[in-house]
Structure formats: structure tokens, C-alpha cells
């Protein structure tokens, strides 16, 4: 398109443009005069009023912390609550000489040096007119002492705050978790508006996983303050929204039975409700007192906990990874039946060892002289290794690994808590990638008895047991039963149920064999069968902590406690209509049958008695 420059009336155009520009400029001047008039109104006429508002009675909006939601157990017993507590706080803006103030406070109240250091560190994240806690949970004596000296410390005051308290302390430490002071890394990622008045955050367990639900929302209060920053009048307030309360699936009574049953052993007990997948018991021992962390743990306490050989801070249930040992056998047996490698009547002679063709290496059975003639039922009841060596070799690692994967081995259970480990389910591909080696047949053998590379978390083991008890209906464990926000129940989402295709008669045969483990004369866990009027299906296991050389013998008396095998037991009951599944690991307990099985039995008895 060519332009029509030539025919345009440039004189007319110039005239229009000039007049339009002049008019616009006048309009701009008029509008700007309007702004100036408004400024004069504000800055000259309104000056004294606004000056007064700005200097004498300043309006300040401060954030009011919400009350954190309460955590209850299944029966409504309080697991985490908020208790009033006195804290010593400083408003830096009102302190003329901070160094001197801190020094005198330290002398007057015998404040440990590390609290002073922590205060200096925390100070950076607050505004200089914020009230920053120096010392929390003051004793009545300290409150009284400070009250006398108060006039000598401008800018320092005692405030009542709510502080988190865990009445069951050690018993629920790993499940419920604890709140602690917000640290530098967390500060960077937290939404500032939500945490303006909140000093602590859930660090582990339910406190961490449900932080957003428990926290609530800060409120605001509009306060008139004088020139010194002292509040003189509250003008308005938006109430904070308290956090929602959470009811857990955990039953504290049952939890206590499990905790006490572990007695002197470290380890873990997990029990799942078979109807729902809810976690009834989640014990990780050794444990610790979470109340130590709430207002900042001292260096000494932390060092003690952290360097203890019992590893009390370590959550064994979700992060401990153990060889499953013989507890894996029911699943492998089921794999054999499903893949039609074996059937219940097939027998094999167990001489106490197994050899691969053309290989002198002897794969031992735990029973030195062998079990003699065994079928699958006997192999599970007496935990015959040789039978499983033979069967897993026939099955091959690919089918073995594939079948175990369906039961959740080698992957996270998806429980609604954070930091869960996935365990390890070896496969040809895993070994090629991670070890850059081909898979050897011998490794299939030891995988078949739950040794070798395989590692499971106690939660995984419990979940697989529950899935077996439920005839292949996959159980996803969860811990939050109900969330109550302002008297309204918020729906807790659970993943859709999945099913493993299994032949019902195969499952019945395996369960039958597991019942024999407990309720037959030669069962490895027969000791727990007395005094119960229902049937328990179970399987014992021992997990090697250290490997015995070819020609050595495992002599329990001679080796030190820390080298002893872990004792494992998985079980569900009643066998004909299962309600509860349990997995127990007693570290260095040596014998699944005599150490781990009674712990599981105690939990099951208590639960079914209710």
C-alpha cells in the first residue's frame, strides 16, 4: 500500500496538531495542579493531624500467632498440645546498648552462653521493633527475679506464649515428631506472611508432614503505640485462625504395649489395621524426649542424643533398612506357586546345604544337619533354606524380583509422613546400573532367603504382610485418620486401592503354612501359641549383620552383641479373618522365634482383646 503523502493537506494537519498539543499541555497543567492542590491539603492543611498520627499515636499492625492444631491418638488422647509458658523477650528498637543489656541479663538470670548466641543469630530475621524471645519456658523463680529488676532493662519483658508439649514423650517421638525453631534454610523457602509471628515449625513426623494443616493462619491486630513504641490501645483485630486438629490412627495403649515388649532391645514395631491400612503402632526404639527440641535443644543434650550408639534420633520404621531374612519366604513361596514352579506336595531332600552345578561353594541351611525330606509347608514352618534356594533358582531373579515388587518391596509405601526410604529390591537391571556387573545365579539363591542385596524398611515389611493377609489387596499405610478444622471434618485423601491378581487357593496354602509356623509342634514360633484362643499366621526371620565365612560356624556366645543377627517376625491375626498385621524387628535379637515373635503376639493379643 503506497501512502498518499502528496494529497494530504499539511497546513491543516499542522494546525490541528499544534492546537491539540497546546490543549493537551494545558490539560496536563490543570491535572497536575489538581495533584498539587491535594498535596497542599495533605501536607499543609492536614499536616498537624497526620504528623500527630505519625509520631505520637502511631498505628501499628502486628501479626498475632495462631494456635497450633492438637494431635490426638485414635482414642482421642492428646499426643501434642499447647501449654502456656513464660518467655523472656527483647525488642531491639527499645534497647540502647544491646551488648550491655545481654551481659547484665546473663548475670542476673544465669543464662547459658549458647542461648545468647542463638538470640544473636535469630535476631537477624526479625524487624527491630519485633519482640524476640531470648529465653523460653522460664521457671517461676526466674519470672520473680526478673520482675524485681524489670525497670533496669528497658525493652526487655516477660511474655506468655503457648509452647508445644508432648505428654507421651519418648513413646510417640518419631511418629508425632516435634516442632523446633525455624532455621536459616527453612526461612528461605517459607512464605513470609504466614510465619511473621510464628517462631517454630514441624521438623519431623506428623508435625512436619501436616505442618500446613496444623499451623493455622496468623491474625492481625491494629495497635496504637506511643513514641516509645509502647502499645496504648488496640483499635481493631482480625482473629487468627487456629490450626486444624488431627486424630491419628495410632493407639497409644497399643503403642505402649509394643514399646515395652521390645524391652532392652532397639528396633521397631509396626502394626497396621487391615480394614483401613491405618497405622496402629509405629514404634522406633531407642527413642528420645521431643520436648527437649521445642524451645531449642541445648548443645549438650543434642550431643548426647546424636552420639549415642543406640541412635535414638534415627527413625527406624521409615528410614531403617534391614535384610528381611526368612520373613521374605512366604512371599517367595507364593511367587513359586503363582508361577507354577512348585506345588504344595512337591518334596525335596535337604542335606543342610545346597550347591549350584559345577560349583564347590556350599550354600548353607541354618540347620547344620538339614531338614531331611521337606515340602513347601514344612519349608515355611521350619524355615528350610535349601528348599528356597532350589525354588528361587528355578524361578529366576526376574520373576522373583517382579513378584516382590508388586508387594511394595523396593519402593516407598506412600505413607503420609516424610523422609521414607525405599529399601532395595535387587534385579538384573539394578545390578548392571549400580554395580556394573552381571547378575550371578548364586545371588538369586541368597535373595530367595531374604539375604544378599535386599533391604526393607519395617513399614514396607508390615505393608507387604498386610497385603498378603488381605489376599493381595494392596494396603497403603497412613497415619492421619481425621482432620477437624473448626468443628468441620476435612476429608483425608487415600490413594485408590489396588489389587494383585492371586489365586485364592495359593494364598490359603501360604497362610496355612504361616499358621503352622505358630501353631505346630515344629513351628519356629510355636512358643507364642499358648494362651491364645485364635490363630496367628506368622513367619520368623533372622537377618545377618555379619557374614560367616565358608568354614566358620556362627557361635552366638562368642560374638559380641553388636554382631548378633537381627530378630524379625511378621504376623497377622486372626488367621481366618485377619484384622491386624504386625512386623517386628529386634536389633541383635538373634532369634525371630523367641525374641521378635512374643513382641508381635503381645500387640496382637492386646488389639484383639479390645
Amino acid at each position, binding site marked *: 500500500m503506497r501512502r498518499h503523502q502528496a494529497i494530504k493537506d499539511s497546513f491543516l494537519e499542522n494546525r490541528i*496538531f499544534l492546537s491539540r498539543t497546546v490543549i493537551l499541555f494545558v490539560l496536563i497543567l490543570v491535572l497536575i495542579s489538581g495533584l498539587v492542590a*491535594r498535596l497542599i491539603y495533605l501536607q499543609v492543611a492536614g499536616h498537624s493531624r497526620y504528623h500527630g498520627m505519625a509520631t505520637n499515636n502511631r498505628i501499628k499492625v502486628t501479626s498475632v500467632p495462631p494456635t497450633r492444631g492438637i494431635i490426638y491418638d485414635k482414642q482421642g488422647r492428646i499426643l501434642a498440645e499447647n501449654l502456656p509458658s513464660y518467655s523472656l523477650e527483647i525488642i531491639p528498637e527499645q534497647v540502647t546498648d544491646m551488648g550491655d543489656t545481654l551481659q547484665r541479663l546473663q548475670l542476673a538470670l544465669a543464662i547459658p552462653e549458647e542461648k545468647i548466641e542463638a538470640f544473636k543469630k535469630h535476631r537477624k530475621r526479625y524487624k527491630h521493633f519485633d519482640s524476640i524471645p531470648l529465653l523460653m519456658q522460664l521457671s517461676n523463680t526466674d519470672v520473680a527475679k526478673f520482675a524485681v529488676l524489670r525497670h533496669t532493662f528497658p525493652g526487655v519483658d516477660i511474655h506468655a506464649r503457648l509452647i508445644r508439649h508432648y505428654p507421651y514423650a519418648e513413646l510417640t517421638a518419631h511418629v508425632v515428631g516435634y516442632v523446633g525453631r525455624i532455621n536459616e534454610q527453612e526461612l528461605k523457602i517459607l512464605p513470609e506472611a504466614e510465619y511473621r509471628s510464628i517462631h517454630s515449625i514441624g521438623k519431623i513426623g506428623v508435625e512436619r508432614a501436616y505442618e500446613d494443616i496444623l499451623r493455622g493462619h496468623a491474625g492481625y491486630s491494629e495497635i496504637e503505640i506511643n513514641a516509645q513504641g509502647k502499645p496504648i490501645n488496640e483499635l*481493631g483485630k482480625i482473629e487468627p485462625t487456629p490450626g486444624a486438629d488431627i486424630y491419628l490412627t495410632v493407639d497409644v495403649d497399643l503403642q505402649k504395649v509394643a514399646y515395652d515388649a521390645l524391652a532392652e532391645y532397639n528396633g521397631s514395631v509396626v502394626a497396621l489395621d487391615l480394614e483401613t491400612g491405618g497405622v496402629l503402632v509405629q514404634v522406633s526404639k531407642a527413642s528420645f524426649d521431643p520436648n527437649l527440641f521445642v524451645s531449642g535443644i541445648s548443645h549438650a543434650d543434642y550431643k548426647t542424643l546424636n552420639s549415642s550408639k543406640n541412635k535414638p534420633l534415627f527413625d527406624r520404621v521409615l528410614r531403617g533398612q534391614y535384610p528381611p531374612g526368612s520373613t521374605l519366604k512366604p512371599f517367595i513361596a507364593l511367587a513359586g506357586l503363582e508361577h507354577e514352579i512348585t506345588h504344595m506336595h512337591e518334596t525335596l531332600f535337604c542335606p543342610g546345604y545346597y550347591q549350584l552345578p559345577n560349583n564347590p561353594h556350599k550354600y548353607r541351611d541354618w540347620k547344620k544337619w538339614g531338614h531331611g525330606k521337606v515340602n513347601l509347608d514344612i519349608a515355611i514352618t521350619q524355615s528350610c533354606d535349601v528348599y528356597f534356594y532350589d525354588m528361587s533358582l528355578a524361578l529366576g531373579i526376574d520373576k522373583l524380583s517382579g513378584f516382590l515388587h508388586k508387594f511394595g518391596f523396593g519402593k516407598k509405601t506412600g505413607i503420609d509422613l516424610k523422609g521414607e526410604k525405599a529399601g532395595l529390591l535387587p534385579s538384573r537391571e539394578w545390578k548392571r546400573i549400580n554395580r556394573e556387573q552381571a547378575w550371578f545365579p548364586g545371588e538369586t539363591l541368597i535373595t530367595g532367603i531374604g539375604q544378599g542385596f535386599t533391604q526393607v524398611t519395617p513399614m514396607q515389611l508390615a505393608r507387604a504382610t498386610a497385603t498378603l493377609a488381605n489376599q493381595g489387596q494392596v494396603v497403603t499405610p497412613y497415619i492421619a485418620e481425621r482432620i477437624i478444622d473448626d468443628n468441620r471434618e476435612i476429608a483425608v485423601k487415600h490413594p485408590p486401592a489396588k489389587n494383585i491378581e492371586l489365586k485364592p487357593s495359593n494364598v490359603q496354602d501360604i497362610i496355612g503354612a504361616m499358621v503352622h509356623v505358630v501353631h505346630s509342634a515344629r513351628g519356629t514360633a510355636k512358643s507364642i501359641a499358648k494362651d491364645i484362643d485364635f490363630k496367628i499366621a506368622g513367619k520368623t526371620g533372622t537377618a545377618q549383620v555379619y557374614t560367616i565365612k565358608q568354614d566358620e560356624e556362627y557361635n552366638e556366645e562368642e560374638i559380641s552383641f553388636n554382631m548378633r543377627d537381627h530378630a524379625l517376625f511378621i504376623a497377622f491375626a486372626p488367621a481366618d479373618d485377619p484384622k491386624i498385621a504386625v512386623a517386628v524387628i529386634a536389633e541383635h535379637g538373634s532369634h525371630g522365634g523367641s525374641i521378635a515373635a512374643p513382641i508381635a503376639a503381645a500387640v496382637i493379643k492386646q488389639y484383639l482383646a479390645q
Partner: protein
Amino acid sequence: MKVEHRAEQFKEHSLIGSLLRKLHIDIPLLIGLLLLLILSFMMLYSTGNKEVALLIRQSARMGIATVLMIVLAHVDPRQFQRFSILLYSIGVILLAAVLLVGDVGKGAQRWLDLGVFRFQPSEMIKITTPMMIAWYLSGHEIPPKWRHILIACVFILIPTLLIVRQPDLGTSLLVASSGVSVLYFAGLSWRFLLTSVFSLAALAPVYWQFFMREYQKDRVLTFLNPEADPMGKGYHIIQSKIAIGSGGVYGKGWQGNTQSQLEFLPESSTDFIFAVFAEEFGLLGCLGLLAVYVFIIARGLYIAVQAQDTYGRLLAGSLVCTFFVYAFVNIGMVIGVLPVVGIPLPLISYGGTSMVTLFAGFGILMSIHTHKNILPG
């Protein structure tokens, strides 16, 4: 016919002056802009708690903006004219792209992630829309015929509606006003102008009902009655008025602001920086700042009147007009005479995008002023 340079017509003796002319820089405009940048620096030092990183970031943006201005000042205005339709089309396509794939920042989709940096197409369209309208109208009779006015309105409405959808009320307002101002300079009849203003006012309730988001409605309601919700939405305006009013005639002195330093005043370094300025420098300071704005506007309009062809004239006039709308709307909202829309104080507020666009506009102004042809015949 050859481009002949003003510097060659009127011998300039000062070395710096001749250098600046070689660079196609307009000295009065440059002085005005530099004054604003210096003030911006002082204000950011005062509001940003003397944070050095913030100042460094802002100077980097100022550097980029200045370079862009100088580069654009070198381009012959006829090139802008030639590429108007292309640049406008690209801008519209990018706006549509933002709606489809853009990043959501603060609840609104405005950004396009280009991998290396994020780009806001609505900024580009603030310049390309007046370019498009100026190009279109300069190809027809002046004053424009009805048909041309209608088509020009369509060109304005397309990007405006796309930006409303983001939603970004402030920017869509700026884009619409930049386009309409071209029509105004082209001699759009007063009757038509007044009719449109009234019919738009009549349409406002419809717009309110069907197009405005909750937060936008809140802002308008808050503007009408800030005391209704002094804790929440009215808080900005009330605190802003306290800051300004307490400044008085002479102000509290540089860095003497109490309202923003005690964090009574939110967004003190971005949209509400004028309140801090008014608190620190008082009425006299405000008059000075307004004088700088008027000076820049006056110089810009002078450049527009002096422009050689219709296109340059219309574009220059519109760019200056947009600059004024920026300043007026921002100051108006901070002193509580206009509702709060997200428009920064031009060249003073912290932030890069609007500054780059404004400097690009001034680069085009300088280009129009410093490239003058000897007309044939």
C-alpha cells in the same frame, strides 16, 4: 536527498555537546531523565534499608535501559514506521502466547519465560500500539475519517482486551490511552471524544458486573471508602496519606522517613515510593519532582510539534502522553485521589520492566528529533 544532521547545520562548540549530538541524544531530555534517576537512587537507598544488592540491581537495569535508549535514538524514524505493523503483530502474538503458556506471578499471567530471561509482552505493546495507530492514521487523511477511526479502535482494543484477560488493569489502561492519544493528536473530533467518554462511563456498570475480578472491585471500593477496612485493603492508602501528610512543607529530610522505615507503609520502594518521597522532602520536594515531570513532558511535546512527518508527530505525542498518564495515575493513587492500580512511579520506583519501556520511548523521541531530512521540493 541525504540525511543531514542538525549538529552539522548548527556548529556546536562544546565537546560533550557535539559528542551527545553525534550519539543522537537530546540534551534537555537527557538532563530531565538523569535528574529522575538520581532521585530514584536516593529514594531506593532510603527505602531499601541501604541494601547495596538492591541498588546494584537497579543500576544494572538503568544501564540496560540507557543503552537501549541510545540504540533506538540511532535508528532512523522511518525504520520505526516501516516495521510498525510487524512489531505490533509480534506484540499481539506474544500477548496471546502469554495467556496460553505464560508464568503466573502474583496471581496474574504476564510473563513469558524465554529460558534466559522472563519477558513481559504487555510492556512491548505499550510502544508498538501507538506505533501501529500512528502508522495507520498517517497513511490516510488527517483528521481521520469515521472508517479509519473504527479500524484504529480495533487495533487498540485487541491488545487492550488481551491484557485485561491477564488480568492487568493498570497496563491495559496505559495501552488503551497510548492508542487513544494518537487518535486525539490526529484530530479526532471533540464530539466523538466526548461521546465515547460518556458511553464508556455508561458501560462501567456492565464492566463491573462481568469483567472485573474480585480484587479489582475491592480496590475501587477501597478507594471510595478506605476507612471501611482500615486493617486490610484500606491500609495502604491510609498509611500512605499519613506518610505524605506528616512530611509537611519541608519534609523530614532524606532518610528521615519514619512511616516506611517502621514498615507502616508497604511497597515503599515500588508503587508507593512517592509517599516516601513526600514524607522525606515535603511539599517543596513534591513540587520540584512535579516540575521535573512537567519539564520532560514539555520537552517531549516540543519534540512532537517539531517533528517532520505525521507519523513522527503522532508517535511522539502519544509517547509523551503515556509518560504523563504513568506519573499522574501513580501519584494520584498514592495521594488517594485515584483507585489503586499497579502502576509504578515512572523512573523512580524500583523495578526494571517499566523503566526499560519508558527509556525505549524516550529513545524513539530522540530519534524523531535528531533525524531530520531536508524535505524534497
